[in-house]
C-alpha cells in the first residue's frame, strides 16, 4: 500500500472512530463504526492478510453490526439530548486517553523491529495471507482453541436466546421491548 493511500485510509479511520463517539444518534454512531471496521479490513489486506480481511468484513460488517442495528431499533433509541455539566469528566477522559494512546504509540514505535525508518519489504512467504496458511495454523497448533471457540459460540447462542426471550410465565403483552416507532426528529 503506497504511503498516500495509507494516510488516506488512516485519516478516514480516525475520523470514523471519532464519529462513533461523537455522534448523538446511535444509528449514525453505528454507521461510523461500520466505516472503521471496513477500513480496518482494508488495512488487513494491505498488510498481506487477505483472507482475514474478508473474514473481518463478513463477520463484523455483515453480521455483528447488523445485530447492533437491530438492537438499536428494538430499543427504539433516539438522538440523545446534549448533556451539560459533564465537561470536566469529558476533559479528564480525553486527556487520560490521549496519554494512553501516546504511551501505546511510543511503545509500539520502539518495539517494532526496524523502527519507523525501516520501510523495507515484509518477510512474508508466497501464500502468506491465504486461507490455506491461516487454516494450517488454526487446524494445527491452535486446534484445541479452535474447537473450543465452537463451544463458545454455541454457549453464546443459547445464552443470548435465554437472556433475550420474554419471561415464559408472563403473557404475550406483559413486556414490551420497545415500541416499533420511527424516530421522530
Amino acid at each position: 500500500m503506497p504511503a498516500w493511500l495509507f494516510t488516506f485510509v488512516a485519516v478516514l479511520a480516525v475520523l470514523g472512530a471519532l464519529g462513533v463517539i461523537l455522534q448523538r444518534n446511535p444509528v449514525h454512531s453505528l454507521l461510523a463504526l461500520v466505516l472503521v471496521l471496513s477500513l480496518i479490513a482494508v488495512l488487513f489486506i494491505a498488510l498481506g492478510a487477505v483472507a482475514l480481511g474478508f473474514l473481518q468484513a463478513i463477520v463484523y460488517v455483515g453480521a455483528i453490526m447488523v445485530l447492533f442495528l437491530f438492537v438499536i431499533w428494538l430499543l427504539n433509541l433516539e438522538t440523545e439530548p446534549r448533556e451539560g455539566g459533564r465537561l470536566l469528566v469529558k476533559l479528564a477522559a480525553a486527556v487520560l486517553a490521549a496519554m494512553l494512546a501516546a504511551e501505546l504509540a511510543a511503545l509500539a514505535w520502539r518495539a517494532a523491529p526496524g523502527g519507523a525508518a525501516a520501510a523495507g519489504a515484509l518477510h512474508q512467504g508466497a501464500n502468506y495471507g491465504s486461507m490455506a496458511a491461516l487454516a494450517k495454523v488454526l487446524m494445527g497448533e491452535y486446534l484445541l482453541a479452535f474447537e473450543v471457540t465452537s463451544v463458545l459460540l454455541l454457549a453464546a447462542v443459547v445464552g443470548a436466546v435465554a437472556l433475550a426471550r420474554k419471561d415464559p410465565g408472563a403473557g404475550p403483552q406483559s413486556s414490551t421491548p420497545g415500541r416499533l416507532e420511527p424516530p421522530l426528529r
Partner: protein
Amino acid sequence: MVAPSYYLALSALLFGIGVVGVLVRRNAIVIFMSIEVMLNAANLAFVALGAEAGSVEGQAFVFFVLTVAAAEAAVGLAILIAVFRNRETVNADELTLLRW
C-alpha cells in the same frame, strides 16, 4: 510500502479513541461500540506485528478475537435487551442497582 510502526501508531490512536468513548458516553450501546473500536485496534496491532514477523499466528489470534467478539456481541446485546425490558433505559448512569 508503509512500515508496520505506522500501523501500530494508528492502532494506538484508535484504541485511545475507543477508551474516550467508553469513559464519556452514557448510552450502553455506544459504549459497546467503543469497545468494538478498541478490539479492532488491538486486532490491527496483531496483524501488523504478524506481518512484520512474517508469521501467520497474528492472524490466528485475530480469528479468535473475531469469534469471541461475535459471541460477546450476541450475549451483550441480549443483556441490553433484558435490561431495557426491566428498566426502560440503557443509560449507564441510571443503571445503578449494583452500586453501593
